[in-house]
């Protein structure tokens, strides 16, 4: 069952990789070195990434809202 909440990352992400290291599920990757990407299937919206993000560009939102956007 998928979680109700999920992480979303703003375009001002600096791609430092702090969130990727912190994520306990390996749901974040930075394949192009431009911006971190969240795997919607794996993310549980725990918020650990958003706590450590130095640029404060990660927000935890309702999954439905993320899919709508």
């Amino acid at each position: 069952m998928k979680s109700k909440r999920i992480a979303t990352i703003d375009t001002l992400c600096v791609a430092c990789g702090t969130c990727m290291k912190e994520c306990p599920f390996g749901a974040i990757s930075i394949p192009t070195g431009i911006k971190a990407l969240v795997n919607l299937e794996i993310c549980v919206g725990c918020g650990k990434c958003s706590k450590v993000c130095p640029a404060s560009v990660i927000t935890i939102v309702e999954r439905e809202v993320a899919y709508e956007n």
Partner: protein
Amino acid sequence: MKTKKWYDYLWVVEITYFVLGFFNILFAWIGMIFFVTPLAISAIKGDKLYCNRYCGRGQLFAKLGSKFSRNRPMPPFFRTPYFRYGFLAFFMAMFFNMIFATYLVFAGVSSLSETLTLLWTFKVPWAFANTSGVTTWIAQYAFGFYSVMMTSTILGIVTMVLFKPRGFCVYCPMGTMTQGICKLKHKGES
């Protein structure tokens, strides 16, 4: 629990680098590895693997930050492109200024200045220098490069204490440059 890999201990290399510089300034040249490797990785692979995995400085800030950081969000202007690229331009201007100072010593116009310049302003006489056996411009570059490395570390520590552990990553000139290279490399991709 995640198992630690060899690259999770690169913060030790960062500390070793600064300690070696205290004993002999010529070790500052090793810092070129920290300068060239990220650029090479982003230019060849098109990602920020260095920042994400191999940056010893980032790891060091994360370690120190777990104890000493206030863990407050950074003011939003730090993450704006204006500030990030502006700081990169300023940093590069200072870097080329250092290269020019090395050139002047190489050309015999200036004599070797055995000082560290912290935060581009404060000159610290360096009593630990042993520059015998090398030409003066090599020593001059070492002083300049060590100054650059120390300056960015001081900025990183201040940012770490005031804001989040890896706060420096937000405006790190190397990070901005590698991200810029990645943007160019992936231009046109969806």
